[in-house]
């Protein structure tokens, strides 16, 4: 396909196919004969407004809502999708993601970091498009390709770089590494290195939100959880199981598929019977949306609606972002299978270049302003490296820290004392 101007028209954010076949099942088939006499047994936690949803509200396609909203937003700045402030924020976040990852590659080849390092280059529109719309109390669950999700959620570049260097100042004190980024402060709840395992955890975080609202009565709304994962994960059972549970209990979660077309060396088309992942949403009774994941503004519009739905208690959404990684699966991947023409096609659709072009053409920001951001980010990333380099390696005393939240879990020694009370435990020299 030819590459259309990235931001030509908002109406292209449609669910494919967009006309004859409705992309969204109109409503949960609650009244079908399958349920026989059991509808009253359906889950209805406590008396909540959301439980009435089942019987009346149709599930709207996000694209419909986006279309409706168009007229509203156009009252301020006709045809423009973002304000200057928003534009600069998302530009900065995307540039940060890109520069940070490029720096990681350099540092990896210089022997400053080890192990498997999966870089996010090319997919920035997804992380930025979604996460920049979250509040601090909202949660993000990521995969092994998690540096940029963490950065977008507000974890300082210093803390992420330091973690990659395996230093105490890292966001997990050097105990996590590239694939296990966490930040309780920013509600980044992993960092999951196995395919699919983060999705249930994200579902659990969403369950907590609902529980806080309906059982503990701590909030009037539901904090939102975003679960990021790739096209390869969408063939894993945990994906299907959690779509089911999230829809069943109407959880405030958005399932964000970053379909970069390749699961290491396995082409999505060779792995998946129906490659349109978004279609699996309607199959479980939730909206499924396909969006151009190389276009941050389109991603953002879809994200806005999906996150809003979750926060309003309207339940989960499945969003498939078609994107592309500009590098191999990890820095250890020779990347020999992907067709150069395919790579070139997506390279021409670089989401950062596209946003820059859009902002300048529409006079949202000047070139000088954007260059200033790039310069600022260069400094931030340089600083993160200097900081990480200067930070200390974990001392021996850290070895046995955090194995158990309550160190009594190490048990009682022959002397009748808890083993964690032994000075050797604080020194990290005990044998466990």
């Amino acid at each position, binding site marked *: 396909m030819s590459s259309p101007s990235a931001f030509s028209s908002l109406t292209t954010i449609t669910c494919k196919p967009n006309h004859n076949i409705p992309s969204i099942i109109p409503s949960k088939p609650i009244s079908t004969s399958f349920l026989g006499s059991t509808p009253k*047994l359906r889950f*209805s*936690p*406590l008396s909540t407004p959301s439980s009435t949803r089942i019987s009346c509200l149709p599930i709207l396609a996000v694209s419909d809502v986006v279309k409706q909203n168009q007229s509203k937003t156009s009252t301020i700045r006709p045809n423009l999708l973002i304000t200057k402030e928003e534009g600069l924020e998302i530009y900065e976040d995307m540039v940060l993601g890109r520069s940070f990852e490029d720096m990681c590659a350099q540092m990896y080849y210089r022997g400053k970091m080890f192990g498997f390092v999966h870089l996010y280059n090319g997919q920035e529109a997804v992380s930025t498009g979604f996460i920049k719309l979250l509040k601090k109390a909202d*949660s993000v*669950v990521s995969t092994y390709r998690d540096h940029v999700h963490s950065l977008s959620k507000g974890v300082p570049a210093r803390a992420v770089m330091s973690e990659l260097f395996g230093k105490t100042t*890292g966001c*997990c*004190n*050097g*105990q*996590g590494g590239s694939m*296990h980024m*966490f930040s*309780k402060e920013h509600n980044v*709840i*992993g*960092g*999951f*290195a*196995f395919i699919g*395992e983060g*999705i*249930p*955890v*994200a*579902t*659990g*975080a*969403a*369950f*907590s939100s*609902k*529980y*806080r609202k309906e*059982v*503990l009565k701590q909030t009037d709304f539901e904090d939102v959880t975003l679960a990021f994962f790739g096209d390869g994960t969408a063939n894993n*059972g*945990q994906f299907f*199981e*959690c779509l*089911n*549970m999230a829809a*069943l209990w109407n959880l405030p979660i958005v399932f964000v598929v970053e379909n970069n077309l390749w699961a290491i060396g396995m082409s999505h088309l060779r792995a998946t019977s129906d490659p349109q992942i978004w279609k699996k949403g309607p199959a479980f009774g939730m909206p499924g949306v396909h969006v151009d994941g190389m276009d941050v503004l389109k991603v953002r519009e879809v994200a806005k609606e999906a996150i809003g739905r979750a926060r309003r208690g309207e339940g989960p959404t499945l969003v498939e972002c078609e994107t592309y990684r500009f590098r191999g699966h990890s820095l250890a991947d020779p990347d020999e299978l992907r067709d150069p023409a395919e790579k070139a096609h997506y390279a021409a659709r670089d989401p950062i270049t596209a946003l820059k072009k859009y902002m300048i053409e529409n006079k949202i920001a000047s070139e000088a302003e954007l260059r200033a951001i790039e310069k600022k980010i260069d400094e931030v990333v340089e600083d993160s490296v200097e900081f990480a380099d200067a930070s200390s390696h974990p001392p021996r005393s850290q070895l046995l*820290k*955090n*194995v*158990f*939240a*309550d160190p*009594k*879990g190490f*048990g*009682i*020694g*022959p002397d*009748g*004392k*808890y*083993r964690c009370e032994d000075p050797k435990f604080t020194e990290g020299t005990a044998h466990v």
Partner: protein
Amino acid sequence: MASIFQGLGAATVLTPTNSIDSKKFHVSPRRSCSERKARFLVVRSDGSLNMRAHRANKLITNAVATKPDGSVASTSSSKPGHELLLFEALREGLEEEMDRDPSVCVMGEDVGHYGGSYKVTRGLAEKFGDLRVLDTPIAENSFTGMGIGAAMTGLRPVIEGMNMGFLLLAFNQISNNCGMLHYTSGGQFTIPVVIRGPGGVGRQLGAEHSQRLESYFQSIPGIQMVACSTPYNAKGLMKAAIRSENPVILFEHVLLYNLKERIPDEEYICNLEEAEMVRPGEHVTILTYSRMRYHVMQAAKTLVNKGYDPEVIDIRSLKPFDLHTIGNSVKKTHRVLIVEECMRTGGIGASLTAAITENFHDYLDAPILCLSSQDVPTPYAGTLEEWTVVQPAQIVTAVEQLCR
């Protein structure tokens, strides 16, 4: 489902019989409660209270011992406390904790409206609502992972494996997330979950439903494992596990749910890390846990008649081991027999043997003997199944050999 396991009263092991026929043992008719209770002796282990004053506030060890010294024997119904079955004790502990802390919730298959496959959560959904007692679809890895995610974000879920064996499907979540995530997050996130459910060799349930997962789970860092064996410790361990900041796996045994015991009315919790002295003795230390405790006690009866004085310890904490209680016993008897239902290769007994050898080798007068289940898939046929797990006669023989 649970009804087929009826008939195993706590005190049946104490019936004066030398029979080691486990069939007979299983189906022996229930005796009246008073008759049973008459043979229980409640021992408070004050010694350990004194020795570990720093934990005294948590420590109410109420070991059931059978040493017939006849000093305390009460059968009257006016005795304080109340009598209940083991599954009811678990439920009582769970209910008390849910009353105490609104962040405690239950999730699993059929835990809500159905009340749990062994009725441990009966009535809780009605009392606490469908969100706090969540019936999940049959998706072990996903609902276990969901429990972990909920725990990371402030709840204290109790996750039930309808049968412990089903949790093999959740092994990744239990190992990678439950066990490691506190560490990999640099201590930022805690996972205060309890994973519990029925396991062990039942009565002809077939290989897949007769598993002892403790051997699989024991090498996961960052989790604790306890096995309950009496209504008293079932309740106390359930409460302790819920209150623990660590992920705890609580093992229950399908054949012990209908054990009856009188437990205190006042609140108590057990210590997760502590073993339970079941029967003090001098000649040999027998370390056991879960259902094998009753096979051991049945053997102990025979051994006492033969003039032996075995010390029986229910290790209760499968990870970590209570090396203090175990060590003190080894230093006293110098002989150790381990009796477990776990698999021989890589089982709890193997780890226990290693721990004792490492720590107390100099006190041993004989090599440690370990009686485990055979390394075979648990057969369906009753005869074969019986030969798979350790029987009291083997225990008697092993002690005679050790004390020769």
